[in-house]
């Protein structure tokens, strides 16, 4: 199967968009039995875009059954039946969950990640053929540590007017995220892994992260490894993004770098991604900015479903249904290439439903 990197290039060269599989995939008997996947529509534009995925899956007759659950960002904890369902099905597709400001409610997104130990968050930022952006040749995968770092949630007020927040970095978590990043690069034919850090200032914390990355790098001699300071990294992303391949980062920097990379490649409305742990995986819009959307988007039903559609293609591959994944991806990319049906963030004015109908029409 052609490598992920070559696919956009091939598609640009050939006028037709056909799946580039030369040798067929041989399943085991019984692999076609439908898999149950937990579906959390979420808040804001979440129900719109997850509805889009349901429609497309239906049209493809994909062997996926969705178990829908109602979950909103202002709930105090994730409902136990949702947790149980995800633990049973092992795969979940989710729309954005709003995290309320202040108020002492901890983010449901974080709760899900901590409870299921989804320690790696992955966002694939790449140029979509036909979508004009300021930067070309972008094909970056940002792998972000998801459980500790600055988001440990350990804050307290020392005296009135002075607040402390603890950032925790452990060797265990840094090592496993580094291992995941290199393993991902190895399995996906990626050439280079870049560690993003601020170890010149936070010598012990980010120093520990870097040490773990270096140790793991030595076990993969075929993959190049380098390190970059986070402020320089952001500067390079906006001027020369083609130099980056796979990036591994701690929690907070990962958030910023992923959103920046998604922004330069076309916006967070089109970048797929997900969170994965040893046993479970949750697929959602890659970068977190705008995954709940503004109220006008919800009212006018103009949210961009592309990110979640591409994430569901990732999910289909994860479930070992590569042919359905290829068909879905091809259909979405040809709709973007054509340019007739694009939502507002891509420069058009279509509604979500129009884009979905266009994708279904392009499914072969």
């Amino acid at each position, binding site marked *: 199967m052609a490598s992920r990197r070559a696919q956009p290039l091939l598609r640009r060269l050939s006028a037709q968009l056909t799946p580039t599989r030369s040798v067929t995939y041989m399943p085991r008997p019984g692999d076609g039995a439908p898999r149950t996947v937990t579906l959390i529509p979420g808040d804001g534009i979440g129900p719109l875009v997850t509805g889009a995925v349901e429609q497309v899956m239906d049209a493809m007759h994909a062997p996926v059954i969705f178990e829908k659950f109602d979950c909103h960002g202002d709930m105090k904890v994730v409902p136990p039946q949702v947790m149980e369902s995800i633990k049973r099905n092992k795969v979940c597709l989710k729309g954005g969950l709003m*995290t*309320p*400001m*202040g*108020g*002492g409610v901890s*983010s449901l997104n974080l709760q899900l990640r901590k409870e299921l130990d989804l320690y790696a968050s992955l966002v694939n930022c790449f140029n979509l053929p036909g979508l004009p952006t*300021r*930067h070309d040749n972008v094909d970056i995968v940002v792998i972000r540590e998801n459980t500790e770092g*600055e*988001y440990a*949630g350990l*804050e307290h*007020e020392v*005296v*009135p*007017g*002075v*607040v*402390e*927040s*603890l*950032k*925790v*970095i*452990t*060797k*265990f978590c840094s090592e496993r995220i580094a291992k995941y990043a290199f393993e991902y690069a190895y399995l996906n034919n990626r050439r280079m892994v870049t560690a993003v850090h*601020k170890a010149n*200032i*936070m*010598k*012990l*914390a980010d*120093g*520990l992260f870097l040490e773990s990355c270096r140790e793991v790098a030595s076990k993969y001699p075929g993959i190049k490894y380098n390190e970059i300071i*986070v*402020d*320089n990294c*952001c*500067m*390079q*992303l*906006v*001027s020369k993004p083609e130099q980056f391949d796979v990036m591994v980062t701690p929690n*907070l*920097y990962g*958030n*910023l770098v*992923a*959103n*920046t990379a*998604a*922004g330069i490649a076309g*916006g*967070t409305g089109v970048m797929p991604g997900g969170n994965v742990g040893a046993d479970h995986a949750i697929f959602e819009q890659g*970068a*977190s*900015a*705008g995954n709940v959307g503004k109220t006008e988007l919800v009212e006018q039903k103009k949210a961009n479903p592309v990110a979640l559609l591409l994430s569901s293609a990732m999910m289909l591959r994860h479930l070992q249904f590569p042919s359905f994944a290829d068909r879905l991806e091809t259909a979405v990319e040809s709709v973007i290439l054509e340019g007739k049906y694009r939502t507002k963030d891509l420069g058009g004015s279509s509604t979500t439903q129009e884009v979905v109908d266009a994708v279904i029409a392009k499914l072969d």
Partner: protein
Amino acid sequence: MASRIVKRVLQNRAGNIFSAGGAFPSIQRSFSSSSDLITATLFPGDGIGPEIAESVKQVFRIAEVPIQWEEHFVGTEVDPRTQSFLTWESLESVRRNKIGLKGPMATPIGKGHRSLNLTLRKELNLYANVRPCYSLPGYKTRYDDVDLVTIRENTEGEYSGLEHQVVRGVVESIKIITRQASLRVAEYAFHYAKAHGRERVSAIHKANIMQKTDGLFLKCCREVAEKYPEIKYEEVVIDNCCMMLVKNPALFDVLVMPNLYGDIISDLCAGLIGGLGLTPSCNIGEGGVALAEAVHGSAPDIAGKNKANPTALLLSSVSMLRHLELHDKADRIQNAILDTIAEGKYRTADLGGSSSTSDFTKAICDHL
């Protein structure tokens, strides 16, 4: 008991900040009339520093800016009074003049002394770093319509340097946000916005996750915003901010942020307009001290070869002039620089041309 003492200290500090009635002490100085000469401290720095400092001096001379320079150099031995290579006299000079310009300084590697930038920051209590980022007409980058100012809190936050190893393999780093520092930088941000005719101030935060720390920062910004009803105030989560900056930088005007986010966002904005070689920067300290600086490195490989680009230091000196309220001189010099770059005939190597530092400086002087 401890909290009462802290409260009293905070109130005293707050009194000092607001006693000048919102105007910053720089205006009250006795030499604010343009006919008097203002003494300013100049740190040429290392590497290309002396050459570009010479450019600045030349441009100021031709433009007849009423500034006389007091030059100080980084010493070769550690001064025990400051525990760094910067001497006590240099720091006293800045404290006395209240205005300074600093070239790039390379901190020598080794132990037993503090980094030069850290020394300056701590000793002069430089609490806000201001970087105006605007697209230079004539120097094309992928972004043409950038016109924003990033104001970053410079003393606390994630860079407090308080880290320790709890047990083997577990490290904690402490991020501190105080009401006093947040109020100070918010006050400066709104004052700057008002003084420079800016319409909007956006506070950048991650208060949905770091509720108490960034929440406190936001509360302070809101308090200050109420005192400036003519300036629009909004709050943007940092991941949204990053995305919006790379998609459409025209959405932002003045950004005020805590330390870490400020570091990243200000470098991102510098990247949008062409890199650190073109970005001016100014550090504001307590008591109206302003130290403008060039944030790029000292480039030892091109030092002494007359190839360096003095734009960053020149634009920083322009922001220094604006701080001194010498707006007409500042405008003249800024326009001369922008015209020279826009014209395209004289450009240094990093902008794609082949002029030398002295040619470029001369072209600017001709444009004055």
